[in-house]
């Protein structure tokens, strides 16, 4: 295989990753720029971070964003896992085609359509726009992403484990909590993280469904970006990137440790 990994392959990968990462790296570098001019380097400084933390509006928006993200990701994970179970375990029930359509369509649906339709629903049922409506909207689109992530794990799941547990007399519900859930847990955790990042990143759907007092950080950033690029926004973006990067690294380390532990257990079981 190594022999077929030609120079062309290596060059295209290196260029591709440079294209993917350079803009983000530049953004982070220029958040430490002392100069007010965003594209001219004026020396290292952290003053934009200080200013960021003194910016009441941005900080309030960040707090709203985090709360919406935590609540919506948690509920979306529960609903998404149930949807994934439905898709993989119950292959025959009335309306299955409609159900899988409703799970996959939000993945590609333009956000302006989802946002507008949810807003019109909230108005039609007389729901005041605000924190609640943004959270409900985020649950709805992120549960579908969770469903896809969990489903891909369930498809490769070895069902003989469940059958063994049930043959030994475990009722189905107990089997689920003692066998199935622990096995698909890594997928559920990454589903939660995906839902959380989708929620804290969302601009379009939040703009449609939010109301007074529920301005999220992307909405705040967007309204300032329209006025021009500022180092303060660079700093805010860098912090968001840092939070997500730390989360992803911690989760993948935890996953790896669990994997190592599992291998060790298996080896011990084979020896014993």
């Amino acid at each position: 295989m190594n022999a077929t990994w030609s120079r062309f392959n290596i060059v295209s990968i290196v260029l591709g990753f440079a294209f993917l990462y350079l803009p983000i790296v530049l953004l982070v570098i220029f958040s430490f720029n002392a100069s007010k001019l965003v594209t001219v380097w004026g020396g290292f400084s952290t003053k934009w971070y200080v200013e960021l933390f003194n910016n009441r509006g941005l900080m309030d928006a960040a707090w709203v964003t985090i709360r919406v993200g935590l609540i919506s990701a948690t509920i979306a994970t529960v609903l998404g896992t149930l949807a994934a179970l439905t898709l993989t375990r119950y292959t025959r029930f009335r309306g299955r085609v409609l159900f899988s359509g409703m799970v996959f369509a939000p993945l590609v649906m333009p956000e302006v359509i989802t946002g507008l339709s949810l807003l019109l629903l909230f108005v039609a049922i007389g729901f005041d726009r605000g924190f609640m409506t943004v959270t409900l909207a985020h649950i709805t689109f992120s549960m579908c992403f969770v469903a896809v992530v969990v489903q891909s794990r369930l498809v490769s799941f070895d069902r003989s484990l469940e059958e063994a547990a049930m043959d030994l007399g475990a009722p189905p519900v107990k089997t689920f909590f003692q066998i199935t859930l622990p096995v698909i847990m890594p997928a559920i955790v990454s589903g939660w993280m995906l839902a959380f990042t989708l929620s804290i990143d969302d601009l379009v759907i939040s703009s449609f469904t939010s109301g007074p007092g529920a301005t999220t950080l992307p909405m705040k950033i967007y309204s300032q970006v329209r006025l021009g690029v500022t180092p303060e926004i660079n700093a805010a973006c860098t912090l968001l990137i840092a939070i997500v990067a730390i989360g992803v690294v911690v989760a993948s380390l935890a996953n790896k440790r669990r994997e190592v532990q599992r291998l060790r257990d298996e080896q011990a079981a084979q020896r014993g």
Partner: protein
Amino acid sequence: MSEAVIDRENGAVAAAQGRSLAGRAVAAVVSRLVILVPYLWLLFFFLAPFVIVFKISLSQTAIAMPPYDPVLSLADGVSGLLEQLRQLSIDNYVWLTEDALYFNAYVSSVVIAAISTFLTLLVGYPIAYGMARAPASLRPMLLMLVILPFWTSFLIRVYAWIGILKPEGLLNQFLMALNIIDEPLIILNTHTAIFIGIVYSYLPFMILPLYSSLEKMDYSLIEAAKDLGCTPNGAFWKITFPLSLPGVIAGCMLVFIPAVGEFVIPDLLGGSQTLMIGKTLWNEFFANRDWPVSSAVAVILLLILIVPIMIFQSAQARAQEQER
């Protein structure tokens, strides 16, 4: 054996059967709930809103809250509701066909999305191919590196390009420092900037399905073709590309469908001159506060996208069947 023992045994069996019956009943209720809860949620928060959008697209603009008329209600009984239904009309759709602005916006959205999808395929294919042929030990890391940008905010990634592309931005500074150009290139606020933005933002969506179909491919087929005298180029077009077609289709749909309705990229990188339907809908809603017309715009956008969405769905379903 005394009768009492037999009785007790029978009792135990009966109890066990009773328990398993109860267990089965609980399991039936639970499985019903597993299906119903997400089903009802999506019916209410995903499907029902589309019905409402369709209804409002047939309504008239009104200066009220909510700003459309009629507001369907049963306050006046069934006859009142029928009277309200009679007020619905297709005026907004007529309006959309009469104003060339909307037609042009739809056409240019589809064209821009199609060109960007093709460019994303051109950029993404060599990367996915390189990844699929990388040493197996490197692949998980390469995959992680492709997914990682997807975790950082879409808005931030688009925003990062403003600083790079603007006339006094980093790209022009770089090219002028190398004496490649004398005058700054005008890229920001043009279609080129939108293409760059879409290719950049959606690249992971293209690479991932391409990679998964290329990785599964049996490379001995190519060696066989070469042994039989096929040129590397010929082998690519006769074997590799056709075998990766499912990945190509999935990747293109994942880029094309959301790109048609894209709002953030044309708004931030395309400037005020660009006409794209997502932007038109946004302006109609937030600037003109015309809910019925923006609903009609959304309905037509959905109609345009329904064929690609169905292609995507069936590709998705087929992939799922294969894995099972």
